[in-house]
């Protein structure tokens, strides 16, 4: 498509946007003012679309002229050289560990949540990215972890280091219990069952207020206490401040990445990839699909449960609202946006999706109102431009990929074997 044709399309799109948006933005009917019609807002929307479209077209035209060679060669060199990649990774972790020493309090706490979400996304990647199971209720396992931890500390005065693994174990158990009946189902049927479980768990935490504090949460008006309290020996370190939480969350993420990377290179990992590509063929090769699925599902839940420990300590309180359907959707979006099956992609996805709204809020207060609007638009735009995800290898999920179809014409990451994607640092190709 030439620049001229693209610009023509942009103009058409702008006109269409103005027409489509008019009934809702140009028309109000209230008891006080009666019905009011105006053309201005719709025109403004048309102009915004026009401006964005022109900028995008020009950018695409410019992008096509940039020689691609050096960037790709650098990416290849990095991927080929394990020692270099490893030391870069080590340096990155050290750099991240030093962040609380120089970053502001606000940024450190933003990053704590990013690290937690990254851990959950990497965990979810086991069942979604590797095994190809769509899970729409992952927040439930996060909630089970967070509540188990808080309940054990507040009601039973457990030590942090006892309650922490217990949270993971409880979430894994929940994963097992849901997984057993649910894994007979395929694809979207499984998705809706996990969704139902996610909602049901949230309602249990909401309604059984005598134990869980109801809407007020733990600790709240109904269940007083302190989740940060030290029970047991005082010399034993446990996270209490924001900085502590940061380091703890970082450690958890590193541990999670290490385990998931090892898993993806193991027998089970290969079985999971086989399952994702073709369940029937995997079965024919002698893979016990139910067992493998159950392991993937339970492992995902386990990491979400462990990650659930951070929020009670970090915020000092948890409420059921934190674990709603939007959280589950956010996790799925992180994994898919980053690229199914890619560990580095999940982390990147989590960082982009969590930090993007924060940056929009902090740096551009003028568009504060439009924050979520932009978030939704960016989510769609990113998928349209790069359907396989930021760091994804082509061909994830059930459908076999048939070449980059988006208007950006994103090329497929060339023949990277799924397991190798875990090493990450693929040079981003498309726009």
């Amino acid at each position: 498509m030439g620049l001229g044709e693209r610009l023509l399309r942009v103009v058409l799109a702008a006109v269409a946007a103005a027409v489509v948006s008019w009934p809702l933005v140009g028309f109000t009917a209230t008891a006080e003012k009666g019905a009011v019609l105006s053309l201005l807002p719709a025109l403004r929307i048309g102009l915004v679309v026009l401006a964005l479209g022109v900028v995008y077209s020009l950018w695409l035209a410019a992008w096509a002229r940039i020689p691609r060679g050096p960037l790709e060669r650098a990416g290849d060199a990095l991927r080929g050289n394990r020692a270099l990649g490893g030391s870069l990774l080590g340096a990155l972790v050290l750099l991240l560990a030093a962040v609380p020493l120089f970053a502001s309090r606000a940024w450190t706490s933003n990053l704590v949540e990013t690290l937690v979400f990254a851990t959950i996304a990497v965990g979810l990647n086991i069942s979604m990215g590797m095994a190809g199971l769509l899970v729409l209720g992952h927040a439930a396992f996060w909630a089970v972890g967070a509540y188990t931890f808080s309940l054990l500390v507040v009601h039973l005065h457990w030590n942090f280091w006892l309650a922490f693994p217990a949270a993971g174990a409880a979430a894994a158990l929940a994963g097992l219990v849901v997984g057993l009946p649910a894994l007979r189902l395929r694809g979207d049927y499984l998705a809706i069952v996990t969704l139902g479980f996610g909602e049901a768990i949230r309602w249990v935490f909401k309604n059984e207020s005598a134990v869980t504090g109801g809407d007020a949460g733990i600790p709240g008006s109904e269940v007083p206490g302190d989740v940060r309290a030290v029970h047991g020996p005082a010399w034993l370190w446990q996270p209490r401040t924001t900085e502590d939480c940061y380091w703890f969350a970082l450690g958890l993420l590193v541990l999670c990445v290490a385990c998931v990377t090892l898993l993806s290179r193991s027998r089970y990992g290969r079985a999971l990839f086989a399952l994702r590509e073709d369940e029937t063929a995997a079965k024919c090769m002698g893979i016990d699909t139910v067992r493998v699925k159950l392991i993937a599902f339970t492992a995902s839940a386990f990491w979400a449960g462990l990650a659930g420990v951070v929020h009670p300590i970090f915020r000092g309180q948890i409420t059921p609202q934190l674990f709603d359907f939007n959280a589950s959707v956010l996790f799925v979006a992180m994994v898919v946006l980053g690229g199914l099956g890619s560990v580095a992609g999940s982390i990147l996805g989590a960082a982009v999706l969590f930090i993007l709204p924060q940056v929009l809020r902090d740096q551009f207060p003028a568009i504060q109102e439009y924050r979520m609007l932009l978030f939704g638009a960016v989510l769609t735009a990113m998928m349209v431009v790069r359907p396989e995800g930021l760091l994804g290898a082509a061909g994830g999920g059930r459908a076999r990929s048939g070449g980059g179809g988006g208007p950006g014409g994103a090329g497929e990451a060339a023949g990277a074997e799924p397991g190798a994607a875990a090493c990450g640092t693929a040079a981003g190709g498309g726009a």
Partner: protein
Amino acid sequence: MLQSLLTGLVQGSIYAIIALGYTMVYGILVLINFAHGEVLMVGAYASVLVYAALTFAGTTASLGVLPCLAVALLAAMGVAGLYGFSLERIAYRPLRHAPSLSPLISAIGMSIFLQNYVRLAQGSAPVYFPAHTAEYGAVFGETNNIQVGPVLVTPLDLFILVLCLLLMAGLYAFVHRTRLGKAMRATSMDKTMAGLVGISVDRVISVTFVIGSVLAAVAGMLLALYTTQAKFDMGFMAGMKAFTAAVLGGIGNLRGAMLGGILLGLAESVGIQFLGADYKEVYAFVVLLLVLVVRPRGILGERVAEKV
């Protein structure tokens, strides 16, 4: 008891109408249209705005309530159809050959976008259906309630039931009796083959989205009538329930969606009657789980042989 069955039936038939949109899109694209609830919300807004404008202009008083409702309904259908069409063009068509989870995320993006777009355009407070006028009361007021044995039927219940039944029958006839309906069925069986025998697959997909959105608009207006308001986040719960209903009946199956919707409505109102309202939102999922354990592909879902 019988009264709660009626409530369930009325709510269930609204769910069924929404579920039809999900199931039609799923049947053809194997895609969960996450933004379907938002199209419903857009339709609800359009109908409330138009009807309110007519009320303020005095047209409802001079022309009567039912013709004005019809105008509002048509406007809602038009606007929602336009939104459904645009949605497919923007968020789904470019991703038709992408990995299967990508359109889902793109749909979630559109859903967030549409919610916030309407919130910004119309405010986060609900807009109210002007249900307190004399002419509205003359048609839908308590004086017109019908007592059938122990059950009290309100005119609104009757209106909703009749409209939903008409729509379901109409859709069924469309899909099974017209050329375009036949093309839709063919496309849902096999997109490539349908293309090879001369069906314009893109057009069929567009039509499917428009029809689903038009149905959602009707459901949106009925919900706005039932709760006398439209709010920017109303599409979420309605969409969730309807999606559950579609899966319950066997997703991709029209009769399944209708049956699933009505069963879901009944399960919910009976559940509230006997078990209390604390877990109101959960009954639907419990029923779903029980059904799926016995029939993993829904009540009317066929056991399809896996293609290898």
